[in-house]
């Protein structure tokens, strides 16, 4: 991806130099291994700070709302789909964002890599398809493809679906025969076992709402969990309140989620909150043939009425 970093920096430099955009939103190097941090660059001298690698797992579409003037943003496949969703939902205007598309080979699963080590990782390097990781006690060379996040392994839209310029050559899209193995695995369980699965999934949740806040879809001025008049959900650690939050958060993403994985990436407790959203993604695909963020001209299925709606409540 080294060439792509150079290309990103060049494009950003040109855009700022010609004053075509006010700023460029991208990733910068983090202060600890396997970390990158969203950054906004307003001066062309700072474009050297931009990086792109397989730790850029957050979704930058989350940062483009309510910006003044025209901005440029670096977009992976999933980011670009969320930009499309933003445009459809009137959160940004198409001519307000300059999209620097980055074809993506997938982001790494940081917690899976961390779990290989007893102690803290002190060094992380990416070299083509391999990852070199060191802690104070050992050094590992891993194949990146073995340590991709689950959503990246199952991703069928690695190339940006919308862009003004590309910072790299388009990659070959994966063809996935069974796109929702995780959902099917849960669905195969008995009802009580499914219940236990989700109870266990969320038991360490601290309600920091990082999943919600990292999600580009969650832009409501007041989230239902924060609303106090009337209050919808208790604010404590009662497991029913926690589950209500996760369940309804997911539901609010139905037909809009691109499975970018930012929610799970942001979770400090490593909860795979995608277990909730993925079910809805599968349902909207099965029922409506819909995948979010692919088409600027179509409203998401739960936002549109169609006489041939497959739901059984309209009879």
């Amino acid at each position, binding site marked *: 991806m080294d060439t792509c970093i150079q290309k990103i920096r060049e494009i950003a430099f040109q855009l700022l130099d010609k004053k075509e955009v006010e700023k460029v939103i991208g990733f910068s190097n983090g202060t600890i291994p396997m970390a990158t941090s969203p950054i906004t660059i307003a001066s062309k001298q700072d474009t050297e700070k931009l990086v792109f690698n397989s730790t850029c797992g957050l979704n930058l579409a989350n940062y483009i709302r309510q910006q003044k003037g025209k901005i440029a943003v670096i977009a992976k496949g999933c980011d670009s789909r969320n930009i499309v969703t933003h445009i459809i939902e009137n959160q940004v205007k198409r001519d307000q964002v300059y999209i620097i598309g980055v074809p993506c080979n997938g982001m790494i699963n940081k917690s899976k890599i961390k779990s290989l080590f007893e102690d803290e990782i002190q060094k992380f390097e990416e070299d083509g398809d391999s990852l070199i990781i060191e802690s104070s006690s050992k050094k590992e060379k891993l194949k990146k493809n073995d340590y991709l996040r689950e959503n990246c392994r199952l991703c069928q839209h690695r190339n940006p679906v919308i862009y003004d310029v590309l910072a790299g050559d388009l990659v070959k899209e994966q063809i996935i025969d069974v796109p929702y193995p995780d959902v099917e695995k849960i669905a195969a369980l008995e009802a009580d076992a499914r219940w236990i699965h989700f109870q266990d999934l969320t038991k360490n949740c601290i309600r920091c709402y990082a999943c919600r806040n990292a999600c580009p879809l969650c832009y409501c001025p007041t989230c239902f969990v924060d609303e106090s008049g009337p209050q919808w959900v*208790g604010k404590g650690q009662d497991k029913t309140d926690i589950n209500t939050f996760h369940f309804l958060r997911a539901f609010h993403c139905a037909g809009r989620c691109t499975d970018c994985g930012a929610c799970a990436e942001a979770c400090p407790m490593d909860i795979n909150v995608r277990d909730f959203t993925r079910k809805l993604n599968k349902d909207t695909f099965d029922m409506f043939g819909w995948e979010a963020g692919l088409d600027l001209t179509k409203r998401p299925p739960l936002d549109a009425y169609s006489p041939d709606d497959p739901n059984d409540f309209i009879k």
Partner: protein
Amino acid sequence: MGNLLEHMGIERDRIHFSWISSAEATKFVDVVKEISNKVRALGPNKKLVKDYN
């Protein structure tokens, strides 16, 4: 929504969606009867109930 609840292990028959016009009184009555029968058959709900303590 029903699907997701069911996926989470909540019985499908505990939640019901219907489109009933304010003029369709008999339909409303029928639907409510149907739901209460279904829920009665399931017995008390133990999931997604607050502990409160």
